[in-house]
């Protein structure tokens, strides 16, 4: 690059920004949580800098399980979910849902697949996977969303190239809102790639008609496994 010495783009941008900072400076508002999941009436609000909480119709009362609301929200996002007790039932449910599946990749030891997935495999090798079986360790009730990291996926492309996803989640791992979800439950820099999925791949780009399986997974099934 033909830049004069001492005026790198970086230094020039930071210097321009510093000289442009609007005044007076605005303080950073605190975003404090309600002091623990499931303790909040209505469960969807804040407190402290936001005033008294309101009740949200249909949202669990304090102490009530979050799974039913999670299931309702996931269904609204185009996903489906089932309560199963133990891995035996989980295996049976997967067999029932995908009887035609030829290539099943499972990263959950208790659920056997037809093909092994190991770290270091080529991303492109996931292209013919019919069903991927994964485990999530965090769900978010307000959006019916599940958390997946590169560690959970083993080969990250598995989550987008597989035609169908089945994700195992403990009902106890569901938090009410995204505020709780981002409150130190994972360390983002530890993961090259991580995501929340709220339902399967979707598009509304043709006259607003919702179609699942635009580019990524055609379906997302969450199995809420109670032990």
């Amino acid at each position, binding site marked *: *690059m033909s830049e004069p010495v001492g005026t790198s783009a970086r230094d*020039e*941008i*930071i210097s*321009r*920004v510093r000289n*442009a*900072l*609007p*005044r007076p400076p605005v*303080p*950073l*508002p605190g*975003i404090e949580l309600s002091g623990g999941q499931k303790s909040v009436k209505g469960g969807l609000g*804040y407190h402290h800098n*936001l*005033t008294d*909480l309101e009740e*949200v119709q249909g949202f669990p009362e304090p102490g009530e399980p979050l799974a039913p609301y999670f299931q309702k929200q996931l269904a609204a*996002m185009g996903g489906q979910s089932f309560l199963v007790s133990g891995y035996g039932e989980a295996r049976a449910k997967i067999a029932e849902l995908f009887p035609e599946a030829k290539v099943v990749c499972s990263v959950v030891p208790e659920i056997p697949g037809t093909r092994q997935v190991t770290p270091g495999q080529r*991303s492109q090798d996931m*292209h013919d996977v019919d069903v991927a079986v994964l485990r999530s360790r965090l769900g978010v009730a307000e*959006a*019916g969303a599940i958390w997946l990291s*590169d560690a959970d996926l083993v080969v*990250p*492309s598995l*989550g*987008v*190239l597989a035609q169908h996803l089945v994700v195992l989640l403990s009902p106890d791992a569901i938090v009410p809102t*995204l*505020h*709780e*979800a981002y409150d*130190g439950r994972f360390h*983002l*820099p530890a993961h*090259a*790639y*991580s*995501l*929340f*999925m*709220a339902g*399967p*791949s*979707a*598009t*509304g*780009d*043709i*006259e*607003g*008609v919702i*179609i699942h*399986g*635009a*580019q*990524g*997974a055609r379906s997302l099934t969450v199995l809420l496994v109670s032990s």
Partner: protein
Amino acid sequence: MSLWQSEASRPVEPEAAAARFINDPKHEETHDRLVWGMRTKRDQAASLLPHWEELREVASQVKEHTLTHLDQYLQQFENNALANGVKVHWARDAAEHNNTVLRIFEEHGVKLVIKSKSMLQEECGMTEFLIAHGITVRESDLGERIQQLSKERPSHIVVPSIHKLRTDIAELFAEHLHTDPHNSDPHYLAEAMRNDARPQFLAADAAMTGANFAVAETGGIVVCTNEGNADIGATVPSLLVSSIGIEKLIPRASDLGLFLRLLSRSALGPPMTQYTTHLHRPRPGTELHFVLVDNKRSERLASPDFWHVLKCIRCGACMNTCPVYRRSGGLAYGATYSGPIGIILDPGFDHRKYRELPFHSSLCGSCTEVCPVKIDISNQIYKWRRVIASEGLLPAIKGAGLPVLGDVLAHPAVFHAAEAIGIASIAHLPHKVLDNPLNPWTRHREMPGAPSQTFHAWYEKEGKKHE
């Protein structure tokens, strides 16, 4: 020669372009219905969430805090990204951004790139630039790909092809994907694109994304999509380049809870996008590059009148609610950004070329009411009108009446005299005088009848009785 370069700096003509769109009632009605539908879903989502207004207020404060400390957060973000093993580049303007991306691709011998939606890359005219240098660039989002095949800009920042009917897309795909031109079933068309795209996604040498948020505390970015196309880019090729506007910074990971709760609800209504993806370091054996772009953002930051526009999180709520946008369609703006947010962003890049845009508004203020980060959009539209007027760039018809109006309004006695004359005249003027080609207001409307006296005269007589 790209679409953008060939248009040079000739002023855009939104009125004429909007008239062409409105001329076809089917397109206009469908567009209006779909876009208003998104606004309706936004209202339902907002009403279901307690403290929606307080969420907006806190989000606005977090953005204003970040922008008033942006030098610190940029450096913190850079340090953390470097520590994560990301290669960080800086670009002062669009040309430097495009050259940086090209250099990275040339060093890696890249021939095919798949990119997810990035308004910043649109703003830089990057795709045309890379194609001119022999690199194949394929849009991976369905709507963006439709626009790419149509050789059009995105007409909406969230749903790029919302101005098209399914029959338009059937025709387009028949030409490019060899589908049945008479089958306009959206499921059939989307499936055809999925099958056309997959082999390209698997063969790509590199991928590109934009960024919805860049988190200073963690040195990573967040990309929100519904199709998962950005995730294919982030997990399949071994090289990923993400373009990040410097205004995308937020301080903490915990701020994501706040912004993500607002973003998708404001855009389309759902509590979040289907995919909310965090990119923090290269996957083993791959490279991750971040390009931080200024391109006049620091100039905006220095402007007391206009810096608030940098709070924008690109949800499109202002477009969905805008009575002008809904009728005219996004392409009428002739610019990267359309709708109310476009009206206040585009003149910041070239206020001569985009001098007409701030007048492409009724100043009803609905955009300001729905903005999830409380940007005073309608005030900024008005302020841009003043900038354009003060530089003598007013469109001819508006320019003719406005200086006279200014003089009249500045002198109350003159105003009251003119008012009385006006009322008397309206009653006696033939309809044709007001309904003339210079007054577009009456093209689809009747003028209301004139009152029998002025308010001032009525108040002198009636109002004072009660004092």
